[in-house]
């Protein structure tokens, strides 16, 4: 049975849970958030991605109520939450440092928010047990935070922020302090918990892999602006700018001049080399400056001239061997270096190519994306 695809952002009938309307935030003369509009929908796992200082943390802190917008409004379920202090918002936050109370046990940490609501003892006990089961913390009930490992602390922080059943959960670099293996496991755990609880998650991260793994939609930010907001696959396959293409994953960028006929574009990029071919939905004027973005894994590498639309001859400059894949840096006669990636399906002793080999690199005319900026 085909599942219904979760995509409320494509449905004009859907009311967003959070709406940023022309939000600007300034600290003194520094503009952290610049006239930003954004809709986040219920049950979404929304990732804010960007380099440090791009404003993603400020955006999150405005949602939590620790900062108020200088201009514009933020609405939660249709209500302006600009003046609502953090302790009265149906929003909880999981802090980057976890911010667990060191003098309280795991149980007391998770129960902290529930006790403030003045719930009765039985209800608190039930809810805390439920949260501890969800995050597999039953064994650590009476431990203090300093007696836990990094991964366990992370789970306590998550359980504590979920205990009050918030409409919206904010996660500030939730996995930053974990090592790589644990981080990957935890990413799936997070998605699992998000699905089980049905809470809307907004995650801030600078790790693009993490954002792509967990999120239903990713927003790439730069200097207080949203550069692109889309699903992970669209962000990766169809970046709207060189900035996004470069920020998400590895990419070769070739600068050239466009000669468009229909949806085909010839990119003239070098005096000595033939033009490259690409298809596009956009319209480029004659000789307009354009950027061809091509992912290394879409570039083939072979000893003989292939029949693909774009084929270039070069010399292997470097090989990055990563175990499962190898990245070949191929230098063209024009001086450009193009990265090509191949899966290592054979044992390394049987590798075709080595340093200084003359090779052909190629890609089809639909493999690359043409960008205007």
């Amino acid at each position, binding site marked *: 049975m085909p599942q219904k695809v979760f995509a409320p952002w494509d449905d004009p009938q859907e009311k967003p849970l959070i709406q940023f309307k022309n939000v600007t935030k300034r600290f003194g003369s520094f503009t952290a958030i610049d006239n930003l509009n954004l809709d986040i929908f219920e049950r979404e796992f929304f990732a804010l991605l960007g380099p440090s200082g791009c404003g993603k943390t400020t955006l999150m802190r405005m949602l*939590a*109520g*620790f900062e108020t917008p200088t201009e514009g409004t933020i609405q939660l379920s249709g209500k302006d939450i600009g003046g609502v*202090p*953090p*302790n*009265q918002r149906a*929003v*909880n*936050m999981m*802090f*980057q*440092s976890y*911010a667990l*109370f*060191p*003098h309280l046990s795991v149980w007391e940490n998770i129960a*902290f*928010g529930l006790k*403030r*609501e003045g719930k009765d003892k039985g209800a608190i006990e039930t809810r805390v047990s439920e949260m501890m089961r969800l995050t597999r913390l039953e064994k650590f009930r009476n431990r*203090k935070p*300093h007696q836990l490992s990094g991964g366990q602390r992370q789970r306590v922080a998550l359980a*504590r*922020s979920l205990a*009050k059943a918030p409409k919206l959960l904010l996660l500030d670099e939730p996995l930053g302090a974990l090592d790589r293996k644990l981080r990957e496991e935890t990413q799936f755990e997070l998605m699992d918990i998000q699905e089980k609880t049905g809470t809307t998650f907004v995650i801030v991260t600078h790790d693009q892999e993490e954002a792509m793994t967990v999120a239903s939609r990713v927003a790439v930010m730069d200097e207080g602006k949203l550069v692109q907001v889309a699903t992970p696959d669209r962000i990766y396959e169809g970046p709207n700018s060189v900035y996004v293409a470069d920020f998400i994953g590895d990419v070769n960028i070739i600068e050239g001049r466009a000669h468009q006929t229909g949806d085909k574009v010839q990119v003239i990029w070098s005096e000595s080399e033939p033009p490259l071919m690409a298809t596009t939905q956009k319209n480029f004027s004659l000789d307009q400056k354009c950027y061809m973005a091509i992912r290394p894994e879409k570039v083939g590498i072979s000893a003989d001239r292939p029949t693909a639309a774009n084929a270039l001859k070069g010399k292997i400059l470097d090989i990055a061997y990563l175990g499962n894949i190898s990245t070949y840096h191929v230098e063209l006669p024009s001086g450009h270096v193009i990265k090509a990636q191949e899966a290592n399906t054979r044992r390394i002793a049987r590798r075709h190519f080595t340093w200084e080999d003359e090779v052909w690199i190629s890609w089809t005319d639909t493999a690359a994306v043409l960008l205007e900026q």
Partner: protein
Amino acid sequence: MRRLILIAVPYLWLLAFFLVPFLIVLKIALSDYNLSIPPYTPQLDLSAGWQGIKDFYDALDFENFTFLTSDDLYWKAYLSSLKIAVISTFMTLLVGYPIAYGMAQAPDEWRPTLMMLVILPFWTSFLIRVYSWMGILSNEGLLNKFLLWTGVIDQPLIILSTNTAVYIGIVYTYLPFMILPIYAALEKLDGSLLEAAEDLGCSRLSAFWLVTFPLSRSGMVAGCFLVFIPALGEFVIPSLLGGSSTLMIGKVLWEEFFSNRDWPVASAVAVVLLLILVIPIVLFQRNQERQQEAER
């Protein structure tokens, strides 16, 4: 070998400057008063050989300690000292906590200056600072002159030579010892803990009581001991600022030594005072250890 020396040095130091003097004081406390120089018997006569040591040992007794229990001056003085030390420690905490809290909240660039201001009084002699309080608190002192000038009072307040002056003196003198450990505890406090508390539904005030206050507890305990221990045996402040009715064991000790010249009784008073102080000192050590453990 090097390790042995490193361990031996502090122990030898403690042996020479703490244990040996303590044993001498204990020996005097077990002796009897006598009009001689030094003013007690027995004297150890090593020239008499083994018999001399035996005679010396036989002459020692606990008479002076029994005497302390028979005269109610002493236990009243101990109790009164305890009371004054407890109350003034509590008052120092009340005054010191807000100061430490303010320092911890101050912008980073202000903190070294504020810290400097707290430590600055140490650059002047303790004695001079206590004397200057006499100038402030006396009937014609600065405080009374100021209050009369503003018209708040029309009769000068009698503060000097009362217990109030002693409390003021102790709180003033030992305030830095309270502020510094509390400040150290508050300064380490992660600001995101308070944000987390607010995020989970706390008001600013309840976040303070539920997070800041318990997390500064170890600092408060350390500060209280650092004030309580010296305040208990305090002698200069009660004798300069206190009146004849101010009874403190430090003063009694001084009088026994220098007015009565009864060294054995004075030594007994000192030994008992030390034994009383061992309890809070041990508790203080425990607190420090627990704190270090929690930080690990």
